[in-house]
């Protein structure tokens, strides 16, 4: 499926989505509360069939937090980037996608650990790398640590 068809398809799933072509991959930006339904339809529709989540990145944009999903279809060979920005920087919450792509279970735990984005309905939302009593989220831009070596 080429990018135009994909764009049309995404817009049919979620009219409010903002689809941008011309970058490295086709990029769709949606509101945070639309994430789960859109992801589910992208995964389940026969025409899109995004069954492989190959990267999940948490982002600190400075004034807000967000997550970027890199999706690929293993049989249709097209890729899509899904960008979500959380509504609230103080208490960022998103819906989990680990019921759609199982690999998200660990990747979301990593995002929670290092960026502090909480995922609803996640089966095991704990820190994965750092200790349970670690204060702060290291990958945030405003995180400061007295022991940080690289300045």
């Amino acid at each position: 499926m080429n990018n135009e068809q994909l764009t049309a398809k995404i817009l049919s799933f979620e009219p409010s989505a903002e689809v941008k072509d011309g970058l490295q991959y086709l990029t769709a930006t949606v509101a945070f509360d639309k994430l789960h339904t859109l992801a589910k339809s992208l995964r389940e529709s026969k025409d899109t069939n995004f069954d492989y989540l190959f990267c999940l990145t948490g982002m600190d944009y400075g004034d807000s937090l967000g997550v970027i999903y890199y999706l690929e279809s293993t049989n249709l060979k097209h890729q899509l980037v899904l960008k979500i920005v959380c509504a609230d920087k103080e208490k960022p919450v998103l819906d989990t996608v680990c019921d759609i792509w199982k690999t998200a279970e660990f990747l979301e735990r990593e995002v929670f650990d290092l960026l502090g984005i909480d995922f609803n309905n996640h089966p095991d939302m704990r820190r994965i790398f750092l200790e349970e009593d670690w204060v702060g989220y290291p990958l945030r831009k405003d995180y400061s640590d007295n022991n940080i070596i690289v300045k």
Partner: protein
Amino acid sequence: MAEIIQDIQEQEYLINMGPQHPSTHGVLRLVLSLRGETVLSVQPHCGYIHRGIEKMCERLTYQQIIHLTDRLDYLSAHINNHAVCMLVENALGVELPERVKYIRTIMDELARIASHQLWWCSFGMDLGALTAFFYGLRDREPILDIFEESTGGRLIQSYYTPGGLMKDIHPGFQKRVKDFIKMFRKKINEYDQLLSGNVIMTQRTQGIGILTEEEAISFGVTGPSGRGSGFECDIRKHHPYSLYNKVEFKEILRTEGDSFARYSVRMDEMRESLNIIEQLIDNIPAGDFSVKMKPVIKLPEGEYYQRVEAARGEFGVFISSKGEKYPYRVKLRSPNFSNLSALHSIAHGQKIADLVAIGASLDYVIPDIDR
């Protein structure tokens, strides 16, 4: 009394495998709950060597990042660096000399063979065949010598740099590599004789630790582990980079999805890598080994992603740039992290000895998980 017996039968036996354990290949900690010898659940606890490389990269220039990506999956150090270099080169639109591409592809494949050799060593060791360990290490030595001669490093080379290579190859490189190919083609058959056909080995691995294709895709299990389940995930084939669209090679696939399938995919991949090197080694064109780059590289504003096929699966680098000399955010998609997430799904219900064999067949490298 009957109640006590039932109580005992229902109790789970919790055991900490790691962080110091011979078969977790590093400082991975697995919390197992057992009933007798049967594994009920596996919970990986990571982070024992988490170094915050992603955070460190935010304060390093693009040339400096190379020295950190080496230290992720140290067995495919070349390949990790390749991803970062290609990302920077593609973002800046730098056209590389053919010579660089040839050398990079050959080095990548050598690193892949060396990595698979070490995997074979530890696979044998985890199953209790210690002799395999020494056979593998013996044959890995020539590759490390080749690396040392050209790059100066044996394990961690930092040989690639945005725009080309740090140094040109050693004059004896081609001869050494050809000697190695000739030698290793014989030795790999020896591997098969020693371990692959062994009755105990086949009993321990065939039909054990089955990962279906659907689950492999869902868990993002890539590389030889994913291809053992029939998941066509070879980035070299599906998203060719460097010279992989010019050389002929097969994507090794198995459909069984058990430990033995993962084992044989890796064995065949070593042979396939030898084929790739053979096609390139005689034709390395003359020319520069690097392009002149600005001393301070600034990527244009935007988000970039580069995928490569590392020895253990798909390695990805995500860099978000604000147009400064430092990246704004770096994310490293490590294959081992995703592969590890499937461990519980593969290993629950198996015996504790099978868990070790499954772990060996997934071939995780802990610094790559923890980053």
